Every structure is written in structure tokens, then in C-alpha cells.
């Protein structure tokens, strides 16, 4: 017989320990940076309350967490829209310390440059409260010279062979005295299109300049305008741009129409500021003869910006849902598809066929994805059989960071997509011709969430296809350039003035922040200040498996 141990009353009373579940689903392990000191640290991506967050810990500055996608289902679904990268013809750097310390492009980079950006200056005729480039009326910036611009263009062409698009940016590129020469230099090279990224002040006031741009905009060598355009409320203008620019924007648009220039309206969208104006911006674009596309960009919390909460920032899926809510008769969230050339969570696009003017009888809008099953072509995971490879190629060019309305490539591919919309061969219909004509009035909507020091995920960075071309001949992924310290490095090299690493103006960081000479925030402790040089980009402090809880 087995003796039963007597059980004491005390043992009975002791609570049985109960295992608890974590409050989140762990979906990725990756690398990021400390937003304060920019060292490379391990990071986790977790799903909580149907939202996607990136979390990391710096041994010195503690834990950071930011919202990276507002709709977890869309985040996970987007993974299928990822295509194999294309290897560029040349790399500019070697792999030494790993991503993101070796930019670039280093041989570990997964994608070529769909879009090259040349910042021609740091000076600007505005001092916007929100500016990822930290530009303005500043005495100690820099402007590139023509031979520097030519070298940058050559590096781009060496890497790309025939390049699709170069974008001139700044600062404010239109106030650079040689901007037309820069455009000429680009057009003299195998670069199919030039985009001018501008606040529109000179376009509004200098009609001769606009005419010069119009003269350069020709078949095979398009010049398009990428116009900063954040909304219609005076408050939007004052808080994002520091000035009421509404009349100037309208005049700039009208002058562009007069000169036959194609315009993309580019809105920086900030939570609690102008997120209610997305639908109005689209309607305005559809109604204006110069405008063929709108690009919505959640405010990049790099450089100069208003105080923000990293846990409630706007993301691509938030913008998509806002558009669908503000224009429910025209859009549904499912009309937008991720772009497979970069990492699919970075950018989403849709195209519309439209006819007439919004607000007038007979106006019609049809999102192209309702006519053509985009997923059958751009879902690279599910589809082992592609119904038609020619159509996939067309859609790849349209769902790309190199797609801009006004370029020949985008126009050709839109016409081809329109022709694929129906069954011309079977029915002998003449409608494709009519639809192809309609495609000339197609309209594009792009949503792009650039990464900042809070949200940076090396996984996305490694496949970035939007590159900053630097005067010393590197191609640096845009979000690395703005987040990791490359922008500060290049400005320091070009201007000869020390530049401290910029730190996001995030709510949790307020106690340690102080103002930089350019209006952005830097660490008050002196971290990231290197008055004697010795800058090292993003030193590695990863410690796989430990430290982030």
C-alpha cells in the first residue's frame, strides 16, 4: 500500500502558478538603429491589436517602439507582392560592417535603383516646420556645382545602364542658379525622364523659367513636376510650411498647365493635421489639367518635424483606409496594391481611368485593379503560372518606384494595360482603342511611407530602390540617407561645417532633445556630435536573441 503524504493546509492554499500569453504575435526578427545614437541594434516586429509594431533596445538609450503598419492583415498579405530584385551594373561600396553601415550600394543590396535623387542644395526659399532635409535660409549649407552634378549622373548611369528617372531635389532645386544646366546634363545622358521636386514658388512667379522647363519636356526626355501640395486648409499650410501658400500653389499649377508640364501633387500627411484632406487633394488633382497623379507620404520623422507619437504615427494602410473613407464612391482599400520592386510594405499604388471633371455630371472614375486582376500578375508567391507574361511586365513597370505620370515608359505601359482590359481578339471589338485613348487621361495615386530612425527595418532597406546619389559617387537608399547619419555626413563633407546626428522629435525623447542650428532636434547629451570629425556610420551593436522584451 502506498502511503499518501499528508497535505498541509498551507500547501493547499498556495496558488498554482498560471502561464500567461504574451499580448502580441512575434512575426519578424531584424535589425534597426537606435534613434538617438544610431548604433545598429536587433529589432523585433510584433502584431498587437491588429497593428504592426517594430521594437528595439539600445544598451544606452533604452527601448523604442513605433507603429510601422496600421493594418496587420494588409501587412501580411503584402508579402506576396515581392519580386526578385535586379542586380545593378555596378556597386559603389564594399560589404564591410553590414547593413546599414556600408551604403552604398553595396553588393549585398537586393535591388537596383528605380529612382535616383540628386539634392542640388541645402538652401531653400522656405523654412518649413516640416522638412526631412533640414533645409532653409541657412548660411552654412552647400550647393553642388555642374561638374559634381555630371559626376553624380554618370554614377547613376554606370549603375543603371539606361536609367528611368532622376529626380532633382534639395533644399529647393529651382533656386539653384544652374538647375536648367543640370536638367540639360541629365537629358544628355541615357536617363529617360527628369523630375523636379519643388515647392512651386518659382513656378508661380517666374513664367520664363516654367517655359524653359516646358521646352525641355519632350518625347523620350520628359521633364515632370513633383509639386509639394499638402492640402487646402490654412492651418495645414501654416503648420507644415510656415506660410499660407495656397494662392502660390494654384498659380504654379496653372503655369505648369500652360507650359504643358505634367504635375504630381505630393502631400506630406501628418496625424491630426491634414489627414482629412486626402480626398480633396485627389479631387483637386483630377480636376486640374496639369495634374496626373497624387503622392501621399506620411510625414517622415527624419530631419525637422513637429513633435509626434511613434505609436500612433500614420502608415500606408492608414492612408489607404482614409482615402477609402473620404471617397467611398470611388475607392475601396482593395483598389491599392503594394509595389513589388521595393519591399512591398514601403509603397502602394493604384491607377484610375477617369472621364470628365469631378463635380460635373457624367464624371466617371474606375480604378484599374477592378478591371484587371492585378494579384494574378504581381503576387509572385501564389502564381507559379502567370496568365500572360507581357501583362506582368506591363504591371511591373506601373507598380514601380520608377513609374511617374508624364514619362514615356509609364504612358506606354498604361496604354498596354488598357489594351489588355478586354477581349479584343475574341470579339473583334474596337473598344481597346477607345480605352487606350482614355489611358492618356489615366491618374495615379501613390502612397509611400518613408522610414525614419524609429521605424527603420534593415529588411526593407536592403531592397530599397529609391537612392540618393551623393557628390562623392555613392547611391544611398533614401531612408538610410535620412535616418542613419549619411545626410549629416554628406552635409558635413560638402559644407565643411560639423553636423550633429539628427534625432526624431518624438514624444518619449523630449527630455533629452535640444535644437540643432537648422531647427531639427539633436541629443542634448552630445551623442552624435562630432566637432572633430571621426564619424562612423551606424556601428554594429547587435546582440541577437537578447535585450528586447
Amino acid at each position, binding site marked *: 500500500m502506498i502511503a499518501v503524504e499528508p497535505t498541509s493546509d498551507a500547501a493547499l492554499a498556495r496558488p498554482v502558478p498560471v502561464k500567461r500569453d504574451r499580448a502580441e504575435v512575434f512575426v519578424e526578427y531584424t535589425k534597426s538603429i537606435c534613434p538617438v545614437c544610431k548604433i545598429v541594434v536587433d529589432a523585433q516586429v510584433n502584431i498587437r491589436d491588429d497593428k504592426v509594431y517594430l521594437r528595439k533596445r539600445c544598451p544606452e538609450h533604452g527601448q523604442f517602439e513605433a507603429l510601422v503598419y496600421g493594418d496587420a492583415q494588409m501587412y501580411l498579405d503584402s508579402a506576396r507582392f515581392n519580386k526578385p530584385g535586379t542586380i545593378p551594373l555596378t556597386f559603389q561600396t564594399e560589404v564591410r560592417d553590414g547593413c546599414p553601415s556600408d551604403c552604398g550600394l553595396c553588393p549585398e543590396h537586393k535591388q537596383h535603383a528605380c529612382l535616383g535623387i540628386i539634392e542640388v542644395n541645402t538652401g531653400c526659399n522656405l523654412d518649413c516646420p516640416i522638412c526631412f532635409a533640414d533645409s532653409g535660409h541657412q548660411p552654412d549649407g552647400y550647393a553642388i556645382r555642374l561638374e559634381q552634378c555630371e559626376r553624380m549622373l554618370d554614377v547613376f548611369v554606370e549603375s543603371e545602364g539606361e536609367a528611368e528617372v532622376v529626380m532633382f531635389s534639395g533644399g529647393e532645386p529651382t533656386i539653384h542658379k544652374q538647375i536648367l544646366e543640370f536638367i540639360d546634363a541629365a537629358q544628355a545622358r541615357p536617363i529617360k525622364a527628369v523630375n523636379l521636386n519643388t515647392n512651386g514658388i518659382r513656378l508661380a512667379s517666374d513664367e520664363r523659367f516654367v517655359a524653359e522647363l516646358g521646352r525641355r519636356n519632350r518625347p523620350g526626355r520628359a521633364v515632370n513636376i513633383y509639386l509639394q501640395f499638402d492640402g487646402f486648409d490654412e492651418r495645414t499650410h501654416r503648420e507644415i510650411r510656415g506660410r499660407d501658400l495656397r494662392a502660390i500653389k494654384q498659380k504654379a499649377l496653372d503655369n505648369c498647365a500652360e507650359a504643358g508640364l505634367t504635375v504630381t501633387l505630393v502631400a506630406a500627411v501628418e496625424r491630426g493635421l491634414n489627414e482629412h484632406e486626402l480626398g480633396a487633394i485627389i479631387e483637386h488633382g483630377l480636376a486640374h489639367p496639369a495634374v496626373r497623379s497624387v503622392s501621399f507620404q506620411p510625414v517622415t520623422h527624419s530631419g525637422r518635424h513637429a513633435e509626434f507619437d511613434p505609436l500612433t504615427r500614420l502608415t500606408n494602410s492608414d492612408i489607404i483606409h482614409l482615402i477609402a473613407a473620404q471617397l467611398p464612391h470611388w475607392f475601396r482599400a482593395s483598389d491599392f496594391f503594394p509595389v513589388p520592386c521595393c519591399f512591398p510594405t514601403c509603397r502602394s499604388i493604384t491607377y484610375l*481611368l477617369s*472621364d470628365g471633371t469631378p463635380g460635373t455630371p457624367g464624371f*466617371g*472614375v*474606375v*480604378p484599374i485593379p*477592378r*478591371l484587371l*486582376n492585378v*494579384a*494574378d500578375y504581381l503576387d509572385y508567391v*501564389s*502564381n*507559379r*503560372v502567370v*496568365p500572360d507574361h507581357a501583362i506582368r511586365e506591363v504591371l511591373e513597370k506601373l507598380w514601380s518606384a520608377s513609374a511617374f505620370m508624364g514619362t514615356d515608359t509609364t504612358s506606354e505601359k498604361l496604354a498596354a494595360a488598357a489594351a489588355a*482590359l*478586354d*477581349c479584343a*481578339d*475574341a*470579339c*473583334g*471589338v*474596337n*473598344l481597346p482603342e*477607345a*480605352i487606350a*485613348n*482614355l489611358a492618356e487621361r489615366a491618374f495615379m495615386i501613390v502612397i509611400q511611407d518613408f522610414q525614419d530612425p524609429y521605424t527603420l527595418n534593415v529588411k526593407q532597406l536592403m531592397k530599397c530602390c529609391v537612392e540618393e546619389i551623393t557628390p562623392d559617387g555613392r547611391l544611398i537608399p533614401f531612408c538610410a540617407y535620412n535616418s542613419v547619419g549619411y545626410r549629416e555626413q554628406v552635409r558635413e563633407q560638402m559644407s565643411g561645417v560639423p553636423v550633429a546626428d539628427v534625432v526624431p522629435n518624438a514624444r518619449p525623447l523630449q527630455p533629452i532633445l535640444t535644437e540643432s542650428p537648422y531647427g531639427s532636434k539633436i541629443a542634448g547629451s552630445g551623442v552624435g556630435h562630432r566637432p572633430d570629425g571621426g564619424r562612423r556610420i551606424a556601428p554594429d551593436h547587435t546582440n541577437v536573441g537578447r535585450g528586447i522584451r
Partner: protein
Amino acid sequence: MRARPWPPSAAKAKACCAATYGSEVMAVLLGDSYHPGGLALTRRLADRLDLRAGERVLDVASGRGRTALTLAAEYAVDITGMDLSDANVALATDAAQSAGLADRVRFEVGDAERLPVDAGSFDAVVCECAFCTFPDKPTAAAELARVLRPGGRLGITDVTVNPDRLPPELTGLGAWIACIADARPVDEYVALLTDAGLQVTRTERHDTTIAAMIDQIEARLAVVRMTARARAEALGVDFARGPVVLAAARAAVADRVLGYALLTAVKPR
């Protein structure tokens, strides 16, 4: 006896379907590239049928061959596509060639009610978005059963309609709705297959796919209005009625009067 609002006879249904698909505007509106659910539903059907590499499969009403090519490439089955239209057979054959699948996919002209193949010659038969258009459904069901080997499986995806509750907006549409109007409730498909000697193993509703199809028709209608309004009106498209009809169709889907279903059946050994 139940009154079928439209069409009154099988012969007329066939004529209406022919007229529908023969009209260029209707061809644009309905398209032929995508059945509701697209390739995702095709893959689901294949998984439900447990298709195995090397099995002999017949695709009845194969259209331009998308289902057949997908099944051949992804499930490595040996597949024969059969379609009434010479043009479709030619297009599908070309597509098989260019996909490098000609060794295991072939397309032939054939009528679902008189399949030109031997009895018991297939391991599986699939038929997507087409059974509802067959005017003599008992005969077609018997043919599908005949060509299966004992133990062979049938997979159908198709439009479902409860004709008694179809709203008047959808019955007055003439040619556009002709095919849908001869669709049946799921129960009736089950009965047709059972009467043909098959044992139905599964029915699934996929009504959201037909809602997506309505979206596509709406989008196509909008494009036709933008590009060829006068021509379409001359061919009988009433753009003013479009929104009314589409709203009625959406309501019908919401009320489960109009839907889309997946059915599988097996031929007893």
C-alpha cells in the same frame, strides 16, 4: 409549378447566352478572362479534389484555358480542356504552347451535353462557371458522370440563384442576365448531380466572389460609358439603369439570392 422568370425554355437560354456572348459590349462587360474567385478559387477546388500528379483531368468549358494551364503547371496533372468555341480552343492551345505545357495540356472542341470522350476515362472533371449555362442540365450532369472512372471526382464552381426570389430589376435585364437566370440554387445542383449517379461530397458558398464580379461588371460598364457610350446605347445598354441593377444585384448577394458555390462529388465505385 414554379414559375421561372427568365428564360422560359432551355432553347431560349442557349440563344440568349449566344446573343449575350456574341455582343461586343456584353463581351466587354462580362469578359471571359476571370470567373468569380479567380485562380485562388481554382486552387481551392483543386485542393478539395486532392488532384495528384499524373492524374487525367477533363476541364469542361475550358474557355481560354486558364484553369487547365494552372492545374497542369501547379498540380502536374494531364489535362484535356473542352470548349464549344473554336476560337477559344485555338487561343488556349497557343497559350499551352507558349507556357511550355503542351505535353500535358490539350484543348478540343466539344459540347458538354455530348462529350466526345470515352466513358470512365478521367480521374477528375472540373467545370468552372459554366454548368449554369448548359441548357439541358440533367444531360450535362449525366455526361460529367459518364466520363469519370469509378471513384473519380467532379469539381464545380458556379453561380447560384434562387429564381423565386430574384428581384425584378435583375429579371428585366434581357440578354445580360440570361445566363445567370438559368443558374440554380445549390440544392438543385446537388439534386442534378445526385440524379446523375454521383455522390456529392462537399458544397461551399463563395458569395463574396460574385460580389467582386459585380464590382468588375460595374467598372467595365463605367469604362464603356466613358469610351463608347453611343455605340453601347445603340446595342441596348441602358446606362441610367446600370446603378439600379447593380445595387439590386449586390442586395441579392447580401440576401443570398445570388451567389457562387463550390461543389465536389464522387462517382461511386
